């Protein structure tokens, strides 16, 4: 598992809205993987199996969001910031203050995170696996348990939504590069 650690942990962060969410997701996925290790029939497929567990745990957590939002314990963001000592100011400049991450890079990452967060779950998974993790369509199809054409469709729709999120029209898009599945 250790060789996969960095990629899987980063993949979890790509799926979630925050690092804390992602680290919880990754930890939960690791625990699930260890408890279900005996169910893995083909050791050669470990990587795909592990990614599938991350996706499954993530989807389970998303399903629980609906119930969570009804909880009286849900705390608004302003309250969180106040408790964290930031008053009502939760701007990115305030939040990045304690890190060595430049404001521009943090803003770029935040834009990408927001664009990914706006995608439906399946499209977000496909985009992260293809664009960030650099996986092949066939691998993504195996991980998401769908056909390759379905993955291509998710990628195309996901990109279109991201463009819309950024306010980019299709005419502005760069030509598809060689090997583009769509």
């Amino acid at each position, binding site marked *: 598992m250790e060789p996969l650690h960095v990629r899987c942990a980063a993949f979890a962060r790509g799926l979630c809205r925050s*690092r804390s969410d992602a680290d919880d997701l990754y930890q939960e996925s690791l625990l699930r993987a260890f408890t279900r290790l005996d169910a893995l029939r083909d050791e050669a497929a470990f990587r795909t199996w592990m990614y599938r567990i991350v996706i499954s745990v993530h989807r389970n957590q998303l399903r629980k969001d609906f119930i969570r939002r009804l909880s009286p314990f849900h705390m608004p963001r302003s309250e969180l910031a106040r408790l964290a000592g930031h008053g009502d100011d939760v701007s990115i400049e305030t939040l990045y203050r304690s890190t060595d991450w430049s404001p521009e890079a943090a803003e770029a990452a935040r834009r990408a995170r927001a664009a990914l967060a706006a995608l439906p779950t399946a499209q977000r998974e496909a985009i992260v696996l293809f664009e960030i993790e650099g996986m092949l369509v066939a691998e993504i199809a195996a991980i998401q348990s769908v056909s390759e054409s379905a993955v291509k469709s998710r990628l195309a729709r996901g990109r279109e939504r991201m463009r819309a999120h950024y306010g980019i029209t299709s005419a502005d898009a760069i030509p598809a590069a060689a090997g583009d599945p769509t």
Partner: protein
Amino acid sequence: MSTVDKFVAADLVALAAYDRRELPSFADSLVRLPIEEGSAPHLELLPLAHSYALRVGQGVWGAAALACVWVLMVFMHVPMDWQHKAFVRDTLDQGSNVMLVWLFATAIAGYARRFAEQRFTRFVSRASDPVAVGSHLVDDVEPWSISFRIAGVTSLVVLFGVVLSMVENHTLFWFPTVPLPSSHPGSWNFLAADFLLDPENSSYDLERLRDLRIAMVLISALAVVIGRSYVRQGRLARILREARVRWIAIFLSVVLLVAAFDLSALHVNRDQSWILTIVTALGAGSFLVSVASFAVKRGGGVEAANQD
């Protein structure tokens, strides 16, 4: 990154770089505790106590519930003088009350754990994440967990028990009565008006009502225990996880238990008590399946992935 627009691709590169910064080590990921060091160490007691309560409760109370349900089901329908069953019934009644306390205590412990973890630890790490987005900043470690299911089941059971207790104690007279005279024996009416209007001469068998209430409490506890402890994987778990199975079981349990309730409330001819036995058993079985199905639903995604 070559297949999306340059601007988007640059941001994705930044995000990928950001997400690879300060990754927890592999060892840390395995032992990472939800409560950060130094933030509120005393709160570690809450998850520990909750976990301990669950383990002890599942083992001891599961066995006790199984035994009680079996004894109750036998004694409910053995053809003997009802007076001779008083001791058994009273014992089971007290046992079901203790079971309710356990269910509530477990649920409250779960709520307390969740609240403490959210309130005192979550916001610390969230606020230090500059690229976190969205409004769901408050998360929890074990949302919609066994505690919530137990709380839900318990609420239903307690509601059921409270209504019956009020009926037993003749304190339900504020309930709006409906003009259903006792000249309609056998009517499928949940709270028969003849009891409300004339409890002394009611056709309801209150002892059997109490038996049913006890059985509901014990079956609820048993179903939660079975669902969480013993049916986590395998073919039975896959069947229970089917939404269709869950909803059919819920429908059947409602219909059959209401039927059993009415049959037992009205004096059933002793010679026909086998009908009540069958309906009650089917209703209890459906109820058990539906609750166990809800309990086993959590974690289905991973096991579904493992099946391929």
